[in-house]
């Protein structure tokens, strides 16, 4: 079939056809006239016998068309014309949709860039995170020992490679005579090879450099090489100092090397497998061998794991775990992001419903147009298609504007979320998947909002509409029902959002009011992490911190200075111990796991922590004295139940597989109230407090209570620290109030975002109800006029008009309440704290809280009444004469 030629010759074809039909009619007329019929009558008869002239032409032409495409083009042209002719309507509809689509685009961009986008390594979806988990509780990570890592690396066949790394740490770099603090990341020799991001210059680390003493090579990141060393090619082979130790630069990384889930380090050094830094800070990434699944890797590594532990006679508490690298590092942020996505989808639905309402209203105005077109032979399918194409045009325009909103919104969202709740540093950018998403959402929206008006349009009762055409708009039961349904749906959706906002607001308030277990208003805190050769021994650490606290205490205006390896709300990460009560069978197979805090004697007083029994630690509990400890209420219950814990001895369990060495036992001398470790929404920790002097640690927090302004206090602190050792910087400077604020920051953010969405929903519902009631009133103007003329009171009319919208609202509320309850039931596990799995989004509030439900319903009813009152008042003021004259 030669359709290219057809396309060009079509004009001639149509022309021929018209001529031909014209000739046909004339011939007929002539014949009839020849038979004695008057000309005029003959013309009519010819027409009659011929049939529907327009339709015949249309059908004949259609034979030559690519039917669907050309009709659609025609419909698109027509639709665009209709939209252009109603700029006000189009603007409102497009803007409403743009808000809905824009909000969705924003959250999608965040989800895409933060959760779904592959990590920036070649074939990165074949990279897996390899770690160990407790057998009893696979959600709980265990420590990976360097021996296990080496066994895995040398024996695995299911992995093409297994690399190890430690989390980057700040260290002092001295080069060309000037020093600065940079991030240094220890990595294994095969690191760049497994990631498949080879160096641009120099060599990777050698296997023998993975031992302490021989690990003095450095690889500089490309951007640091550019910025700090001005891309000097002579840097290779040169010496730089890290914390005073000489390292020789061996290579420069590729500019393509980015992690996104770890802060980008400036310098890499070999990971010395035999050094103490590995014990608690070793992580592994594997690259799957071809055709191997993570599950197969897990099975293989588990076998090696058990073999190694058995050969050393160690208990099999843990096992291997293997999971997609990207998912492992992003899952902590996934749940709240998905939750926001759900809430934002509700807003889009409301926007669609609202626009559908607008379309319906306009559908009424166009009833005659549809009727006329149906009479002229437009089939039902044609009308539905036309209607859908119009809504598609509108939602595509909404999508285009929404994309702009979305890009802007994604930036705002990212800023509001902050780096703590975003797993990756990747920029949130417009890319093909985002555009595809916008297109998809636009099409789905078009279907959602176009289907009701389209079906309605196709049901036009020709006879009725045309007969009443002269009278203007005419009441239509179907119309009323469709609009009422839309409003009810809108009310229901808004209720779900409003109820959610209420839950998060209440949860936020309760989080702030929850007992924290400590109180130190105005106190300033900071952290010191001692590093370098001068602080290798415990007494050196002890000496540094005791001098520092002495010096701080001597600053005029300082009331109290205390010290702790962790403070409340800092999520103490460094010290743990596994203990058994002396003279008793162990409560747990491998002992009870405690969080340890090495603290100064005045720690509890300074933090106003409430002592429940026994005594606090004091200055007599010095290095050589009897080893003592205080436990918190939670640990007391866990270890002793209702028994008195005072005087009991705790023995530490050595765990060579975790690098935990045996320690001397401690005697419990006191019990203190639980203090929040992360925030109120946590499972309270089992805490063990020991004297800092008996357990010196290199990393510690200092808390200072004073009446000095923050700026001058901070200057004095920096001066003191610098005079003591200028290479040991203070960091993480925050007041305790700051820490409290940031502990509820997540809840605050969730509350704000859900409240904002609920507010948008309320506005949309207001507009929707307003429009609908205005429409009802208009429909019933004549009725009201007659009733007023017959003596009904205006108040009665007003009541009637409002009652109608209230009835719809109540139906919507009923649907909304049940959906909210069902949704809450479905989500209850995801919304509350699950230990080791995810932190809770709700705290101290029931998912079906009746008070909040009543409040949400009440607020919606107020909005409903207000939105219907304004147009309903018009009903009251109907002038009977005018109303009747309409007739």
């Amino acid at each position, binding site marked *: 079939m030669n359709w290219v030629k057809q396309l060009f010759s079509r004009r001639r074809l149509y022309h021929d056809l018209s001529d031909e039909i014209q000739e046909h009619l004339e011939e007929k007329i002539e014949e009839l006239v020849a038979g004695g019929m008057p000309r005029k009558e003959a013309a009519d008869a010819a027409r009659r016998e011929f049939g529907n002239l327009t*339709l015949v032409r249309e059908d004949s032409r259609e034979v030559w068309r690519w039917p669907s495409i050309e009709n659609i083009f025609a419909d698109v042209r027509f639709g665009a014309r209709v939209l252009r002719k109603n700029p006000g309507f189009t603007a409102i509809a497009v803007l409403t949709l743009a808000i809905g689509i824009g909000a969705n685009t924003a959250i999608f961009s965040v989800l895409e860039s933060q959760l779904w986008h592959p990590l920036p390594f070649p074939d990165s979806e074949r990279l897996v995170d390899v770690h160990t988990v407790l057998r009893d509780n696979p959600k709980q990570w265990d420590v990976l020992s360097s021996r296990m890592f080496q066994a895995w690396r040398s024996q695995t066949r299911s992995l093409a490679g297994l690399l190890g790394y430690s989390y980057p740490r700040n260290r002092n770099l001295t080069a060309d005579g000037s020093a600065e603090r940079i991030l240094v990341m220890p990595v294994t020799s095969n690191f760049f090879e497994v990631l498949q991001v080879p160096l641009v210059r120099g060599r990777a680390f050698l296997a023998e450099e993975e031992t302490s003493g021989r690990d003095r090579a450095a690889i500089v990141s490309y951007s640091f090489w550019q910025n700090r060393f001005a891309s000097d090619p002579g840097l290779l082979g040169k010496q730089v100092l890290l914390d005073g130790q000489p390292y020789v630069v061996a290579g420069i990384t590729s500019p393509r090397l980015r992690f996104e889930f770890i802060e980008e380090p400036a310098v890499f050094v070999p990971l010395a497998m035999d050094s103490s830094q590995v014990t608690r800070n070793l992580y592994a990434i594997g690259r799957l061998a071809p055709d191997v699944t993570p599950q197969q890797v897990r099975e293989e590594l588990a076998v090696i794991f058990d073999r190694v532990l058995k050969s050393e006679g160690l208990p099999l508490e843990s096992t291997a775990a293997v999971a997609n690298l990207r998912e492992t590092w992003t899952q902590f942020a996934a749940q709240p992001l998905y939750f926001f996505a759900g809430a934002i989808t509700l807003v889009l639905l409301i926007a669609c419903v609202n626009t559908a309402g607008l379309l319906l209203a306009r559908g009424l105005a166009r009833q005659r147009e549809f009727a006329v077109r149906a009479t002229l032979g437009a089939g039902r399918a044609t009308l539905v298609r036309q209607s859908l194409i119009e809504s598609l045009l509108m939602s595509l325009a909404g999508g285009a504007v929404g994309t702009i909103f979305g890009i802007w919104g994604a930036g705002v969202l990212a800023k509001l979320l902050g780096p703590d709740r975003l797993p990756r540093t990747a920029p949130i950018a417009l890319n093909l998947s985002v555009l595809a998403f916008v297109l998809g959402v636009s099409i789905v929206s078009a279907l959602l909002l176009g289907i009701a008006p389209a079906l309605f349009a196709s049901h036009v009762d020709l006879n009725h509409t045309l007969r009443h055409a002269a009278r203007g708009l005419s009441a239509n039961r179907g119309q009323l029902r469709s609009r009422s349904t839309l409003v009810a749906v809108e009310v229901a959706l808004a209720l779900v959002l409003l109820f959610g906002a209420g839950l998060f607001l209440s949860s936020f308030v309760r989080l702030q009011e929850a007992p924290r277990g400590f109180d130190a208003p105005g106190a300033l805190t900071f952290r010191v992490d001692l590093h370098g050769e001068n602080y290798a021994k415990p007494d050196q650490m002890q000496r540094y911190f005791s001098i520092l606290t002495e010096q701080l205490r001597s600053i005029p205006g300082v009331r109290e200075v205390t010290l702790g390896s962790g403070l409340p709300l800092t999520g103490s990460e460094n010290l743990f111990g596994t203990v058994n009560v002396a003279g008793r069978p162990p409560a747990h197979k491998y002992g009870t796991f405690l969080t340890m805090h090495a603290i100064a004697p005045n720690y509890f007083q300074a933090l106003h922590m409430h002592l429940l029994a026994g005594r606090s630690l004091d200055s007599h509990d010095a290095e050589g004295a009897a080893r003592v400890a205080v436990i918190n209420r939670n640990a007391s219950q866990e270890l002793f139940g209702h028994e008195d814990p005072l005087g009991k001895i705790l023995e530490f369990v050595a765990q060579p597989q975790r690098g935990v060495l045996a320690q001397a036992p401690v005697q419990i001398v006191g019990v203190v109230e639980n203090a929040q470790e992360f925030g109120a929404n946590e499972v309270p920790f089992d805490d063990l407090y020991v004297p800092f002097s008996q357990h010196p640690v290199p990393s510690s927090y200092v808390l200072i209570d004073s009446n000095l302004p923050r700026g001058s206090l901070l200057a004095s602190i920096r001066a003191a620290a610098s005079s003591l050792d200028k290479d040991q910087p203070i960091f993480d400077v925050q007041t305790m109030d700051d820490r409290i604020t940031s502990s509820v920051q997540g809840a605050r953010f969730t509350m704000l975002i859900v409240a904002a969405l609920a507010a948008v929903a309320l506005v949309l519902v207001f507009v929707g109800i307003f429009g609908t009631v205005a429409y009802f009133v208009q429909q019933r103007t004549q009725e009201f006029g007659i009733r007023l003329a017959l003596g009904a009171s205006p108040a009665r009319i007003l009541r009637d008009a409002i009652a109608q919208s209230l009835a719809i609202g109540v139906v919507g509320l009923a649907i909304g309440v049940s959906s909210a309850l069902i949704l809450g039931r479905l989500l209850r596990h995801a919304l509350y704290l699950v230990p080791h799995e995810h932190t809770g989004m709700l705290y101290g509030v029931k998912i079906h809280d009746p008070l909040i439900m009543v409040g949400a319903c009440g607020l919606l009813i107020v909005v409903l009444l207000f939105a219907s009152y304004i147009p309903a008042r018009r009903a009251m003021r109907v002038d009977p004469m005018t109303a009747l004259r309409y007739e």
Partner: protein
Amino acid sequence: MKNSEQRDLFPGALEMMILRTLKRQPLHGYALAQHIKRTSNDLLQIEEGSLYPALQRLLKEELVKAEWGISATNRRVRIYKLTALGAKHLVREVSRFERMLKGITRVLTPGES
């Protein structure tokens, strides 16, 4: 499908009749319409106009071809001719139609088969 052929006929019936008529002699649209009406003794309710979409379909499938010419009554008309393809198509369609008719007849006159 629209209400293009007045639906007293089954799909393709009009096309078949057109082809059969054109097999006898080339005709222009009007004459074609009159001939079909006459030969069917006006039993079939065919709107004259419905001929044209059918003719367009036949043209498109190259079962007929058309040329402008002068009719017997001295009018400028488009005269349709059966093509070789059209003749073959007609044979096939007629035999299919006869089979169908036989089937229908059997059902409508039970007990006589």
